[in-house]
């Protein structure tokens, strides 16, 4: 059994390339500045990665959702970040309550920006980014744990 799954040997470089291609294809977009570019790139990355996760889940025959006991929660927190789909959903809920926190997570997690770069894009201080990140991280983590228990 086993065997390579066509379409899933997508390597990270290709992921990045795909995002880049999508970006430059947006001919009608006028890049206002670096910050603007970063912002759009992060959104793009988020979509690509969620798509990637969906196709992977599909390949795993319906993607057995992992059930994690609460006791084990602390140690699996990093792995929880691998569930792009659940994260994407939770992030939408967060953005509904607090749009800026949603943007911060999008830029940092999906866009890979540093605290300083995030601050530059959103025109707020680094300290604010860190404070908001702390709460956003706690909030999203809580959402994902809830989702697993359901």
């Amino acid at each position, binding site marked *: 059994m086993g065997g390579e799954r066509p379409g899933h040997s997508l390597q990270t470089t290709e992921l990045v390339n795909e995002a880049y291609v999508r970006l430059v294809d947006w001919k009608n977009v006028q890049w206002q500045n670096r910050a603007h570019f970063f912002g759009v790139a992060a959104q793009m990355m988020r979509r690509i990665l969620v798509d990637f996760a969906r196709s992977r889940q599909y390949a795993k025959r319906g993607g057995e959702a992992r059930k994690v006991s609460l006791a084990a929660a602390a140690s699996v*927190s990093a792995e929880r970040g*691998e569930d792009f789909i659940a994260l994407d959903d939770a992030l939408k809920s967060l953005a509904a309550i607090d749009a800026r926190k949603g943007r911060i997570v999008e830029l940092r997690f*999906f*866009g890979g920006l540093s605290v300083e770069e995030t601050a530059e894009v959103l025109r707020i201080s680094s300290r604010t980014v860190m404070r908001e990140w702390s*709460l956003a*991280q706690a909030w*999203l983590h*809580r959402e994902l744990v809830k989702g697993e228990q359901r």
Partner: protein
Amino acid sequence: MTPERWQQVNEIYHDALEIDASQQATFLAQACAGDAELRDEVESLIASHDQAGSFISEPALKVAARILSKDQAMSRVGRSFSHYRLESLLGVGGMGEVYLAEDTKLDRHVAVKVLNEKFSQHESNLDRFIQEAKAASALNHPNILVIHEIGVSKEANYIVSEFIEGKTLRERISESPMQLPEVLEISIQIANALRAAHEAHLVHRDIKPENIMIRPDGYLKVLDFGLAKLIEKKTAIKQNTTAKAVILGTVNYMSPEQAKGEQVDERTDIFSLGVVIHEMIVGQTPFAGATISDTFANLINAEPQPLSDFAANLPDELQRITFKMLRKDRAQRYQTMDELLTDLKALKENLTFDEKLVRSASAGQHVKKQHQTPAVLVLVALLAGAIGLEYRFFSTRKTLSRPDGKTSVVVLPLKPINPKDHDQLYEIGIADSLILKLGSMGLRVRPLSVSRQYTDIKQDPLAAGREQQADFVLASNYELARGKIRVTAQLLNVANGQVEETYQSEEKDVANVFAMQDAIAGEVGNVLSARFPTTSRPRIAKRGTTNEDAYRLYLQGMYLFGKRTPPDAQKAVEVLEQAVRLDPNYARAWAGKAHVHLTIGSFGSGATMHDAYRKSVEAVNKALALDKNLADAHSALCETKMAYEYDFAGAGRECKRAVEADPNSSLAHLTYSRYLNGRGRFDEAISEVKTAIDLEPTSLFSQRSFGTSLYYARRYPEAITQFKRVIAVDKGFGTTYNWLVVALEMQGNYSEAYEWWMKMATLYKYPKEALQAYRAAYETSGWQGLLVERARRCDLESFKPDYKGVYFQGAVEHAKVGQKDKAFEYLKASFQRHEKWLSLLKVEPGLDSLRDDPRFDELVKRVGL
């Protein structure tokens, strides 16, 4: 949730996180004012915050990359390559995955590394890979992973190696802080593996903690030889796209030349190992930055932060070793693994020896009582403790008079009241300030090199005072709390053990170390000035730098200088060069460097000697430009004028100036005595060397110099006694054997001279053939026969262009056997080479047979004596 409500949650959440966990409940009860729903919301967020750990801290793209490789890897478990069945995934690396596999033929466990598709795509890559792997598999060394097979199949390329049960050094580092002995043990094993590889002309290129496996029994294996070369190639090709992920793992351990894409050689492994050692001690790599480009910039431009900034109690020697490994310019690093191993092993042995001594000292008191001498040696070894081992101890000296009747004091290093506060900067630094202060009050104060011997926390102050034949001991301790220091000092009378004065400081700020040290020294001085009416000269002794690191390095450099061996002198130069790099206006360090170069010159001849002279003059000029009254600079200048310029009048002036500038400098007196030897002023020379000894009684070098002054004064019996004393303390101390042999010879005691000569020849490992020739010569024709044989052997070697010996010595050998013409030939060569020994032309007893020859007078005139 309303925006107002959310805002409220935000505020309480942040406030709660800022206060102490124990007070959180109280705070929340108050802040939520009975609103249970609000409190639940905030509390659950705080709980989630505590659990979140590294949740979404890693950028999504990296997470995706990890998922991808895991997916791919998992799919291979259960498959077979040739007769290897993959059982489980052990790890995923840049080049591929590593599996635990069963070798079904030999029924054993092996590790199979399956290379990435991309990796083996290019045929030339593959060829090179196979070639390198073959070379690596040919290395037969217990610290290098054994490669069983290199497999190439349609499906994948793979390497089969022995399976090591254990953990990687990476895992070990993240487990818990590492202790020095373990760090050294691991470093030495890695260096051993690399030495074997380098001997086979194989450079590893990718030394990092992930590539080192530690077995449960402590045995270590270095993995992945030669594979890195492929990564480099790959990186270079892909640089335009996104090779970041590939470099990411390794850039921290790259050498500057490797990062710049230049040709690399063995020395790149030395650099990378330096990074690994730094990481084992500090927990992070020395050049790591927030981003790859930061790391890259640090690697090219920044100096590594000293290890002592991270860990207390580290030997300075380790700092020196890692610093040398991490030099940007590979020509300034260790050049071979052998050189590095020598230093690492020496350091480890000193540690082991220390430990043993500590153990044996506490093991049983009766041992001490039964064997007085060993116990004393144990004690001395303990004192030398933290820095290294050195038996600079004299048990038989009793009656050296104090020439000027001044009161003498030993200042002990300060002791921490709480041992965990131990910090050399306070212990030695404050002692140094006190020494300068008391010296400026006209007291005869033992120099810092003496104080350094008493760093042991259990040191009995009075015993130290007796050993140094001092009238008083200043013993102090200190206490640290919240950035403040409090120092207590007691002046003890060595004769009756009474506390004569006590001083206790106010709490002082340690932020400005030098201001604190000077304030304390000043206050102690005030307290003691009542007891010792100040005969103070207005000159104020200067520390001379405000850079703490430069100061530390200076202290270390002068300590190494005091050992007077070629390797220590080399190290001393390196350390002092670091000091003046940190503070180019540090006159004392420049002067110290000048002295060290002179010592190096005296070990060598020819080019080494002249190079040393030039460097010494450079350093002394820098020192004098900064401080024209610096004693150590003037004494260095005296030595260069006398030994290299044959300017004896000038040398005399400089030496006098040095002892006047600082009458407490034993180095100044010692240099002056050497000058006086050459001038034939033996009584003065002996008086000066005695003063030097009085200032620093435990210096073996001063003790031996006393012997040489006696020898030139032709007081042979006393000289013989003195040399034997030195040998009794340290049989390997420099050329003391040689001195003893010539003194015995001059006394006419040939049988004993022969006895010691043979001991020396054995100690210094003369070639067997030479030993036999000497023995035969002595047995047939007595001492004179041996001298003839020596002169003959001298001729075999000398007058070759690269002759490393001393021509002056050749002249002595020939003069002793009556070969006058030959002797003058040697003297002529000595003059042409400008050998420093010619300053002793008029006093060397070995040249007596030449003195009535007109050629001798002429030479004396030409040298300017």
